[in-house]
């Protein structure tokens, strides 16, 4: 009993207590909180359940536009439409990650760390809507570690692939697959294309111009994310 009391006392001691908001806590308290938080996050990551596909049963209970996003790292979740600002749609996930999409193309992320700050996808949304192949010029912006805006240009080629019927929440959707292969623009002359594509995105576009599924690149540190439009 006394051991538990001592342990509790120690925890309280380390965390400190205050009448003020946690924003104003001392450096010691915040450091301890940071370390404890990191340990807890790692523990949760290890104990996280394996990823599972969303089922029709789950989806049928929701009557609002719903996305499902899954990163290659395993981080996944549903996202609800938070705001509709034509041509942009703002989505928010349970873990407060935010996506902004333009015509099914991801143009901004927040809350992932090295986020895609903003992207100018050029005529890509139009091409996707019309399911038309062709060249696309992209401009990506990220904030680096000292809050400077870093701009990268990409020259992409969108190609038309075969029709595919894919399952979105167990509902079959007839789509046409389009692939976008992007090379970096830059180099010595400022207009050199990289030898290899830096990233390759895939879009499954339905007959009604909805992008039902896509696999899009978030950036060099983040990798790819697969986005399913569960409910339009």
């Amino acid at each position, binding site marked *: 009993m006394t051991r538990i009391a001592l342990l509790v006392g120690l925890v309280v*001691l*380390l965390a*400190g*207590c*205050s*009448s*003020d*908001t946690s*924003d*104003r*806590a*001392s*450096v*010691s*308290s*915040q*450091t*301890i909180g*940071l370390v404890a*938080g990191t340990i807890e996050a790692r523990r949760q990551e290890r104990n996280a359940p394996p990823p599972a596909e969303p089922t029709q049963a789950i989806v049928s209970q929701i009557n609002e536009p719903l996305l499902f996003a899954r990163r290659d790292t395993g981080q996944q979740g549903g996202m609800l439409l*938070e*705001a509709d*600002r034509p041509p*942009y749609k*703002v989505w*928010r996930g349970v873990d*407060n*990650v*935010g996506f*902004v999409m*333009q015509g099914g193309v991801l*143009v*901004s992320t*927040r*809350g*992932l*760390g*090295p*986020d895609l*700050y*903003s*992207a*100018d996808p050029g005529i890509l949304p139009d091409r996707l809507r019309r399911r038309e192949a062709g060249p696309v010029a992209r*401009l990506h*912006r*990220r*904030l*680096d*570690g*000292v*809050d*400077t*805006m870093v701009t990268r240009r990409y020259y992409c080629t969108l190609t038309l692939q075969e029709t595919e019927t894919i399952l979105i929440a167990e509902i079959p959707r007839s789509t046409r697959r389009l692939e976008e292969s992007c090379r970096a623009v830059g180099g010595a002359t400022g207009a050199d294309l990289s030898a290899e594509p830096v990233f390759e995105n895939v879009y499954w576009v339905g007959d009604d111009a909805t992008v039902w599924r896509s696999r899009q690149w978030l950036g*060099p*540190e983040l990798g790819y994310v697969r986005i399913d439009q569960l409910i339009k």
Partner: protein
Amino acid sequence: MTQLARSRSRWLRLTGAARSLALLGLGLPGLLGLMAGSAAAQQQAEILPRPTLNFYGATGLVDMPTAEHQPDGYLSATISYFGQTTRSTVSFQITPWLSGSFRYSGIDDWNTGASTSTFPTFYDRSFDLRIRLMQESGWRPTVTLGFQDFVGTGLYSAEYLVATKGFGPQGQVKVTAGLGWGRLAGVNVIGSTGTRSGSTASTGGQLNSTDWFRGDVSLFGGVEWLVNDRLSLKAEYSTDDYDEETQVRSLFERRSSVNLGFSYRINNATELGGYYMYGDTVGLMLSFATDPAARPYGGGRDAAPRPVAQRPTRSAPAEVWSAGWAASAARTDTVARGVEAALAAEGLELLSVGLAADRVQVRFVNPRYDATAQALGRAARGLSAVLPASVEIITLVPVSRGLASTAVTFRRSDLEALENTPEAAEAMLAVTGFTQVPPLPGTVWESENSRPRFSWALEPYTRVSYFDPDAPIRGDFGLRLRGSYRITPNLYLAGSIRKRLFGNLDENSRSSNSVLPRVRSDFAEYDKQGDPALETLTAAYYFQPRDAVYGRVTVGYLEQMFGGISTELLWMPVDSRVAFGGELNWVRQRDFDMRFGFQDYSVLTGHLSAYWDLNNGFYTQVDAGRYLAGDYGATLTVTRQFANGWEIGAFATLTDVSAEDFGEGSFDKGILFTIPISWLSGRPTRAEYSLLIRPVTRDGGARLNVDDRLYETIRDYGQISTTERWGRFWR
């Protein structure tokens, strides 16, 4: 014991010095290294890994330096051990061509074989500077000029001119050759450039510039082979004769001038080295390096901000857009409360708001966001949801200690139009105005937040003290109770009491031998007797007599050792990189028991200060005036500041106190670090970890410590500082 057994037991033992210095050298930098290690995975691979470090913590082979430098801005901490010598070094790449180091070395068994000596372990502090003269390209090698231990006791004093060139398809074989003076000219002397006085002042800490590049010259060199991107093999010819360590004190045997070994990169931040030293003994080193510009979480893990609320279209009924609400006290009140709640949801505290039909001015306190631009952006988003449609011009005024330095104004239409566009950050900055703070427009509503408010906190604390030869690192852990009563946003009462729970800061048995008034050198007495201690108890008043001029008066127990009155004035325009200020204090020295009593010593101190934010990440501050011991002089501080909140700098003070009177160290100097916690956590917080390392604490050039001086209170809110991180507006 046979020769072999003795040498084996020597290098297997981790002696007291090594243990203490391991704590010192590895503590915080080690933690950063581990955290940065996780970030290492996020960084893109470089062509060649960054150069390896040597036993002196500088870029080099084993004991010899090379001409290479670390990438710009890198901070590294190295601990090395061989032959009873432990060296812990912190190095910083100040610019791509200039690096500096601070080293704390400990040599055990110092009394062995010596005729006179009183230290079982010899501790030494030294500073280095390395300047790159030429960069490698084509047929040219990299060339660097180095000053090792250029202001210290001179145990390791050396100067060198060294060149390094890479050979092979990717330059994996690096050949180094150099000329060394001083400590690096013990063996293989090829000539001489005059005579070195060889004497170190009894006080140490002098710049023996007449000795630089004088005396014997030796040729040293070595080869490093980068086997792959993790492993390097090194061989060097060392011209350091280790005369004192081997001939006088028999700490190891110098059988050969050749050192061999390997260096292994565990990850981008951590390097481990093992070497066979001088044909006799094994040496080990471990180093951690971190790049302050490579923030572990990139742009940050803060939660996605709420979208900017759009106003109804112009085709909506006219009442929606009418300005009638501004005439109604009840409706104005509702809007003001909405503003308060919207700001609170973003962690901001509203002080007052002025509401007119077409414009609003919001004065608030930002306790959360280290980037002012982010506080402004979040405030703007919150306001967009609660302000009536007729309000078009929004002015945000961040307030710190009642001082409002800058008003940030933009149009609501711009906020709505630009939000998700690709060039949102640049475009928003182009349409945002930074001005002096105008009076509040329309109806003024004061929040509860500007009423008197009391807050308290009970928190753990740690205090650390360094460099006592009896114990290089000591620490205390305890509890701190602090309270703050804000009478008005400009007037504060604050106090702080600490109680040690456990620690050994009171075991310092040295007493001060200072000939000056003992304004700082009695710190051991304060540590011993001050428990529980009243750290501070002050009343502070902040005022703004005119635009761009700020003032402060603080009265009470100002710091650990002094209490009295401190007054300050600062002139700092909104868009200025330069600020000027002056401070005048009258203080009395506090009793050692840190209760309410005072000693007899009192002094009038004051400084005129100039603050200059250079545009390239450097910041300098000059303070000239009278210091606590009554001496007159000036302090120069130079800091490298990264936009993400990291600061690394150094300061030196020269006063009319002579080197003999000052005592050990000859003049006051030190290095400073500030690490923002938001860099480590990825979430916004204003808390930062500050570390000031003074090699020697003496009484000359001692400045009063006062909390919340003016410059640090308001500089985050100026235009320069805010726009430096403007990208965070939309985060």
